[in-house]
């Protein structure tokens, strides 16, 4: 099916189903129940899941396959965003030109950065990409203000030229759409106490994500992907065989830059605004966290990591001490306060602390990320089921960690 192996086709089908049914899956709790705050099925968050999924998939093509750790990937996301917003200002609020432009410009920029950075490897490569990203951030923030809007960033205005669209009525705000359908249009369906939102923007981004995921599977399984794995395993030996590995790594770099650009363009398509903070190095650090947490070098890992981090960022950060007291009201008074005081630093505004601890735990104990964790649990369950741990499954689960 679709020129995929049987296992990959199964995985792809699984992801397709999950993505399409996400409005149901992410809203498992009735609106009035105490757990409603764990519902993640609102459009804004669902869009972020898939968009950052694309970003992480792209990063994984570089880091997971070649082992080159880029600390400046947010720059490509930023360039894509700026390109998209200019298309919206100059041409049309239709998202198609915006997204095409974001991919092209991010690709060109990553070609330049990659050509220079890939002359070094290891930590020097990380520092070079970091330096380029910080330079882009600083320039977007200061010198390039006429193009980037500086600190305030850019939004489409009513009186922008927009040569393909007619003039907008005074007082309306331009909204991004696709041939008349607006990105923020949603269909709401309430069943009993449940409310499901089907947002057009989400499905648009989700289809992009599925396409991106499909391409990444094909890359992983192609001879090109094998070559990239060769770079990761032993670049020197690859060079000794007479191959020039640089074009391959550069191609991987540009592809992952284009993925980042696509994510940036989609972000603009959803919220029609952009600011330089999108290129700050912490944003680059975040995508590294996503890929590692989910499982670098695996197909589904980065998507899991992106979803996990965005879920934490939006849901865990909203829990405050009042809610905690509600949860633990059944405990004796003194104990209730003690438990709440113990949990409190890790939730709400402190969710970064939880993230940092989890990230460290993953790097130390589970170098293969959540995927490896899942495989280990599956292997353990299977071992229990058969009555004994099969030694091969344990080993197989260990290899993606490399």
């Amino acid at each position: 099916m679709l020129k995929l192996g049987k296992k990959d086709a199964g995985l792809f089908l699984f992801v397709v189903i999950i993505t399409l049914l996400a409005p149901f899956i992410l809203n498992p709790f009735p609106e009035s129940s105490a757990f409603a705050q764990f519902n993640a099925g609102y459009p804004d968050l669902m869009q972020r899941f898939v968009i950052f999924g694309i970003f992480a998939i792209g990063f994984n093509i570089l880091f997971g396959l070649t082992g080159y750790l880029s600390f400046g990937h947010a720059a490509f996301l930023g360039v894509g965003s700026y390109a998209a917003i200019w298309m919206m200002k100059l041409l049309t609020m239709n998202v198609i030109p915006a997204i095409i432009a974001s991919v092209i410009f991010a690709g060109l920029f990553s070609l330049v950065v990659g050509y220079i950075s890939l002359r070094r490897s290891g930590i020097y490569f990380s520092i070079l990409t970091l330096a380029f990203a910080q330079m882009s951030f600083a320039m977007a923030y200061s010198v390039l203000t006429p193009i980037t809007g500086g600190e305030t960033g850019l939004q489409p205005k009513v009186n922008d030229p927009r040569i393909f669209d007619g003039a907008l009525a005074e007082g309306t705000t331009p909204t991004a759409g696709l041939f008349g359908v607006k990105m923020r249009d949603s269909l709401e369906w309430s069943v009993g106490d449940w409310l499901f939102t089907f947002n057009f923007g989400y499905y648009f981004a989700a289809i992009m994500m599925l396409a991106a995921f499909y391409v990444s599977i094909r890359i992983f399984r192609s001879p090109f992907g094998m070559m990239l794995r060769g770079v990761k395993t032993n670049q020197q030996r690859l060079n000794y065989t007479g191959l020039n590995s640089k074009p391959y790594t550069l191609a991987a770099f540009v592809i992952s830059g284009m993925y980042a650009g696509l994510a940036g363009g989609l972000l603009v398509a959803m919220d029609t605004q952009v600011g330089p903070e999108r290129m700050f190095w912490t944003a680059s650090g975040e995508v590294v966290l996503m890929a590692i947490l989910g499982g670098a070098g695996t197909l589904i890992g980065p998507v899991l990591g992106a979803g996990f981090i965005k879920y934490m960022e939006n849901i865990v950060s909203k829990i405050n001490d009042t809610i905690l007291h509600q949860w633990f009201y059944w405990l004796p008074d003194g104990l209730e306060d003690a438990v709440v005081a113990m949990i409190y630093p890790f939730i709400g505004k402190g969710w970064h602390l939880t993230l940092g601890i989890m990230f460290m735990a993953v790097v130390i104990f589970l170098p293969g990320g959540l995927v490896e964790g899942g495989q280990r649990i599956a292997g353990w369950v299977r071992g229990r089921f058969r009555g004994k741990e099969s030694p091969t499954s344990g080993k197989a689960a260990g290899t993606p960690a490399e």
Partner: protein
Amino acid sequence: MEVILLQILNGLDKGSAYALIALGLTLIFGTLGVVNFAHGALFMLGAFCAVTLNRILSLSFTTIDDTKKDFLGNPLKVETPYIEAWFGPEIGGGIIAWSVPLSILFAIPIMVLVGLVMERGLIKHFYKRPHADQILVTFGLAIVLQEVVKYFYGANPIPTPAPPVFAGSFDFGAAVGFDPGSIIYPYWRLIYFVFAAVVMGAVFIFLRYTTFGMVVRAGMADRETVGLLGINIDRRFTIMFALAACVAGLAGVMYAPINSPNYHMGMDFLVLSFVVVVVGGMGSLAGAVAAGFLLGILESFASLPFVVEIIPGINQIIIYLVAIVVLLTLPRGLMGRKGVMED
């Protein structure tokens, strides 16, 4: 001439901070071979040692003074620090005012302890793992440390004043024969530079002229052989890690009056310090110090108004630009040793 001198002086204090952090980073890299992304967090912890000591010293009890009224007409509540009550307002007030220099004594044991725990508890397990893993785990540790500090001290910068004696500025112009007032330089920055120079000198002397330092240098050159000679090199490297943590912490303590400490100051400095280390050459202590001052001074020259007029925004990107050029033209950095991380 005055302008040039002023910019050099302006670059010195930031350059000293870069150089101190980069020195610690290089020390760790040279001895343990670990790329420590949590080093900026150690700098931040040092700064918060100064904040903490200031708070401890300022712990106060409240008395109600019936003779005075506040603006609502209620009896005025007077906060008296315990220290002033114990030693009298003169000495007590003096101790509080000198809290930042006193923090040096307070920070040394804390930073050494933090360094030891960090090395034995975490870094030790990462010697054999790839550099990417080391970067990632220390990056995670940096996030954890800065979030812990944020939890206890909040997200806002906390002003930590220098002793009032050093609050003023030094008229450098008059001292070297230019017009008075042409070069004004705050005393504390001058002290920071002197302090940094002393710390760096101490580290170099320690490595150069003590037996311990000699063993460590031998270990940096060939760890295995030193181990075969029956020397417990791991323990010495652990102590070097603690020393590097201590240097970063002291840099942070003294930096507190220059820039009010906040929880993300470490990350801000870390990125630049890494650039400094790489420009100086991985594993070269002298290179780290030289590159630190060089980049600090270059940055301050680049922010001159007429330079910015010619190349707008150069002050924001000069360090990264220099780093890119150096990395591409000199594979080993300015003073890197042959064979250390050349790929």
